[in-house]
């Protein structure tokens, strides 16, 4: 979230789209209801299904799963063509005025530069002056400025076109647009709450980009009650993201590539240069963050002479991808030896379950650290436990994978910090020891680390240095205290031995060490900031700066400098997170130099432009979001029928990657969570299992009637990947939609069951496709095609 849960109460308009907080984040949803009660905020809910969030909203509009970009594109068109955007804010805070190279355009489904299945981005670039700065036209009139290009791009997204794609009516769309654009007034704020209903698409990143564009046009970024807010679905999914994935190091530093042969090459490629003279370009400090990370990893082994150990980090081949879909595909192809899983369950939560099970059966070994026996640990039992659903899976006798299932401690048995969706690092304490032989994860990891290190010390082997030089110098190296680890993550001055106060103190000369620069300030000489329990709220905006600690720098609202005009006057005096007192910015931690007068620099200090990107040339399939159909779609793309899906859609070509068409699979399927269950965990607890013991298939009334299906009738749902069975729940919640003149039915599938647990049921991912977003590699779990048959 750019803002946070408690801040949602400051909103005048709440757009809930791609999420269902009333059921999936019920406690967070209290702040939506508070905004409604205290501020008379309007709640607009756009969702394929009439959810409990929809039930308390002021306006609900149903749309077809996977058409959100069309809807948001329609909002952009509506705002710009009806002058319902915050013009001054857009001029000050976005790249609307930036000029783009000659030749940029869009036609027949492709942006300029499309050739041989790839984009040459030459025409997507800013036009630079002699000093390397982007040229701008502050009047926003230049035909090649971002504002005009955006206006042209979205001129196609009229209410009628939106309605025809999404399946709602043009009147419903316009009603929603009127309500959402209330926030275009300088003194009004609107928030956007989303979740996996947006990220589970093969154009997910562009979808979030579209939301950010709407919020920028409304002047909602940096404002209390504003922002783009991902609700997120796991207790520390934010923290695990902050600590890196296949393509990132801790703190969002990019993974080195093979052509970055030394630290200087790496830093040259990954340290942005300011694109405007008034841009602070804070990420120009990347060398300090990177060097300090290397010092945290390699300690005294990291010296200036050896590039601080940079060589020891893995270098990914240029252009290569090692994200989820890719390495499971490689596993399926027999190219991987082993998998280590700490609290993840790919058989349940990866797409295309049959492929996941088959991939795991090709491993030599599998290590799973868990609270419970999961489907992943028990994948070799799929034939025994659920043959009907996984007829393609092998018998246990024929699976040669050796599996270690390690009993791990649960949350209450460990201390450490979780980062919630508001970016608040909240420290917890351990209440009890783990049961029986179960161990804390830090002990499991440390034991494995040392055991492998010992083998290398004894036997030698392939390039031991990266492993042998990695520091694990905790007081008890095999039983590290997480407080000690947290202090290392915060960072330390290696000359004085003192904890750093924040990333502003990091140096690029090797005199500071810091495990994750965005967390610097979380454990200072004053102690653990994450365990703070102060109730103070000096701004009165519900920011609670003394409760826990928020990254970065305890800032509660990102981009908060945009909450005032250029002279530092708040857009809304009653909701000002920042005020300039003549010497300093007061209020929230400023997203700006704390003592820099208002007009000294551009407001978005983290971006080289100094302003936010309406036009984002770094995304792979276009600088503006465009509506593409899901990988499996019931209709042709009415905007450009020859380019139906995302031109850079990522798929794989194994013998288990199948796609269907509307001829065989005429219905659009969506997956969702129920309030009584958490993911695939609570089927191991009694109350949740009792409250929602059975899987069901939500089927629209009209379709049920056509097929002679009543409540509880046993039905089979099939896709090109697999099939599942369950009782029907006939519903009014899924309205029949009209798309391109065609009647479209959507089927609702709750996710929470599997073949182990107190209650059993089919895994929905038996049906989902291995279709992935090309920017981030997220699978398309929503908006795929199925068929429904009555069998009971």
């Amino acid at each position, binding site marked *: 979230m750019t803002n946070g849960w408690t801040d949602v109460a400051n909103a005048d308009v709440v757009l809930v789209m791609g999420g269902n907080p009333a059921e999936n984040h*019920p406690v967070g949803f*209290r702040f939506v209801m508070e905004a409604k009660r205290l501020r008379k905020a309007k709640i607009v809910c756009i969702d394929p299904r009439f959810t409990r969030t929809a039930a308390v909203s002021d306006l609900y509009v149903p749309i077809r799963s996977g058409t959100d970009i069309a809807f948001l594109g329609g909002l952009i068109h509506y705002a710009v063509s009806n002058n319902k955007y915050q013009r001054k804010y857009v001029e000050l805070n976005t790249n609307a005025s930036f000029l783009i190279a000659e030749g940029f355009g869009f036609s027949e489904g492709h942006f300029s530069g499309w050739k041989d299945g790839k984009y040459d981005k030459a025409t997507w670039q800013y036009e630079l002056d002699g000093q390397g700065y982007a040229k701008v036209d502050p009047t926003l009139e230049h035909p090649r400025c971002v504002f005009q290009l955006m206006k042209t791009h979205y001129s196609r997204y009229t209410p009628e076109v939106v309605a025809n794609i999404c399946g709602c009516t043009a009147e419903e769309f316009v009603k929603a647009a009127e309500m959402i654009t209330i926030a275009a007034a300088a003194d009004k704020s609107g928030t956007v709450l989303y979740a996996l209903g947006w990220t589970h698409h093969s154009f997910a990143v562009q979808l979030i980009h579209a939301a950010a564009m709407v919020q920028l046009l409304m002047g909602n970024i940096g404002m209390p009650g504003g922002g783009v807010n991902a609700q997120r*679905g*796991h*207790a520390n*999914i*934010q*923290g*695990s993201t902050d*600590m890196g*994935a*296949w393509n990132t190091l*801790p703190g969002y530093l990019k*993974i080195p590539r*093979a052509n970055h042969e030394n630290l200087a090459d790496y830093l040259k490629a990954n340290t942005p240069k300011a694109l405007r003279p008034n841009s602070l370009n804070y990420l120009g400090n990347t060398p300090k963050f990177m060097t300090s990370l290397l010092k945290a*990893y390699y300690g005294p082994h990291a010296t200036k002479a050896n590039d601080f150990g940079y060589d*020891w*980090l893995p*270098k990914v081949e240029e252009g290569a991808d*090692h*994200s989820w879909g890719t*390495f499971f595909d490689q596993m399926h192809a027999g190219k991987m*030896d*082993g998998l*280590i899983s*700490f*609290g*993840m369950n*790919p058989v349940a939560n990866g797409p295309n379950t049959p492929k996941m099970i088959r991939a795991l059966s090709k491993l030599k070994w599998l290590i799973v650290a*868990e609270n*419970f026996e999961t489907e992943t640990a028990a994948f070799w039992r799929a034939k025994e436990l659920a043959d009907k659903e996984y007829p393609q899976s092998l018998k246990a006798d024929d*699976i040669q*994978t*050796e599996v*270690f299932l390690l*009993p791990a401690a649960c949350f209450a048995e*460990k201390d450490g910090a979780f980062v919630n969706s508001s970016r608040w690092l909240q420290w*917890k304490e351990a*209440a009890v020891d783990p049961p029986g032989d179960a161990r804390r994860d830090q002990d499991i990891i440390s*034991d*494995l680390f040392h*055991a492998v290190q010992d*083998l290398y010390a004894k*036997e030698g082997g392939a390039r031991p240095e*990266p492993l042998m030089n990695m520091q694990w110098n905790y007081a008890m190296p095999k039983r590290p205290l*997480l407080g000690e680890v947290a202090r290392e993550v915060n960072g330390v001055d290696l000359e004085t031995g003192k904890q750093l106060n924040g990333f502003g103190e990091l140096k690029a000369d090797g005199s500071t060490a810091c495990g*994750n620069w965005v967390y610097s300030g979380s454990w200072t000489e004053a102690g653990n900031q994450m*365990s703070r329990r102060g109730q103070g709220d000096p701004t009165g905006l519900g920011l609670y700066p003394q409760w826990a600690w928020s990254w970065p720098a305890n800032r509660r609202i990102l981009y908060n400098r945009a909450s005032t005009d250029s002279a530092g006057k708040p857009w809304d005096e009653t909701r000002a997170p920042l005020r300039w007192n003549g010497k300093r910015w007061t209020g929230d931690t400023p997203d700006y130099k704390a003592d820099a007068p208002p007009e000294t620099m551009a407001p978005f200090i983290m971006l080289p432009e100094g302003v936010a990107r309406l036009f984002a040339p770094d995304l792979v399939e276009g600088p503006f979001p465009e509506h593409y159909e899901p990988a499996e779609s019931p209709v042709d793309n009415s905007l450009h029928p020859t380019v139906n899906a995302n031109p850079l859609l990522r798929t794989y070509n194994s013998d288990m990657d199948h796609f269907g068409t509307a001829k065989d699979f005429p219905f659009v399927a969506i997956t969702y969570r129920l*309030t*009584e*269950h*958490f993911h695939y965990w609570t089927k191991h*607890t*009694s*109350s949740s*299992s*009792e409250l929602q*013991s059975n899987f069901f298939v939500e089927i629209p009334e009209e379709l049920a009637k056509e097929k002679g299906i009543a409540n509880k009738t046993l039905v089979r749902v099939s896709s090109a990947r697999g099939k599942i069975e369950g009782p029907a729940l006939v519903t009014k919640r899924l309205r029949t939609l009209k798309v391109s003149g065609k009647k479209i039915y959507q089927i609702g599938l709750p996710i929470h069951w599997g073949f182990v647990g*107190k209650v059993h049921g089919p895994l929905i991912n038996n049906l989902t496709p291995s279709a992935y977003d090309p920017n981030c590699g997220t*699978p398309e779990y929503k908006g795929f095609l199925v068929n429904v048959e009555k069998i009971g």
Partner: protein
Amino acid sequence: MPKESSRREFLKRSAKGAAVGGATAVTVPTAVAENSPATLKTANTTKTNSICPYCAVGCSVVVHTIGDKSRNVKPAIVHIEGDPDSPINRGTLCSKGASLEEFVQSDRRLTTVQHRAAGSREWKRMSWAEAVPKMARFIKDSRDKGFEAEDPQGRTVNRLKNIAMIGGCTDTNEINYLLSKFRFGLGMVAYENQSRL
């Protein structure tokens, strides 16, 4: 493996679950009700601050344990409730959070290392002392086989592609950081967490 629990057990336990079910956030009652027993089960407990491990709202919880102060008695959790001091949840929890105690003390919790040999049809109990060296041997042998010190162009790449590691979203920042050190020590490039999904 623990046995699946029976329907009867569900019904027995469900009284508590049913009382807190539904979509709305529920305040766990803290006031003493009429006809309450002389002492509440939380009267003499040790209270530990923790955070709900489910969704990312980040509700603070108070874990009540007894036994901490007695000799030869292992602390046991008797109750988990919302923390009234948290500006996020102010003591409230959803139906899942309100039944967290069952998650911690579920009879399906793993308490021993389980091992499944190649081609076997069953789990067998194994000690940590046996499991750790076996796992380390697998990791080392795979790394020795798959490690690429240089790429075909002779550039230093120090990468390992034949072992993947996943996880972290259920665990703390500090565990995630240790996983990053473990991963980069080995040179692993295939590393993912739930944020991708």
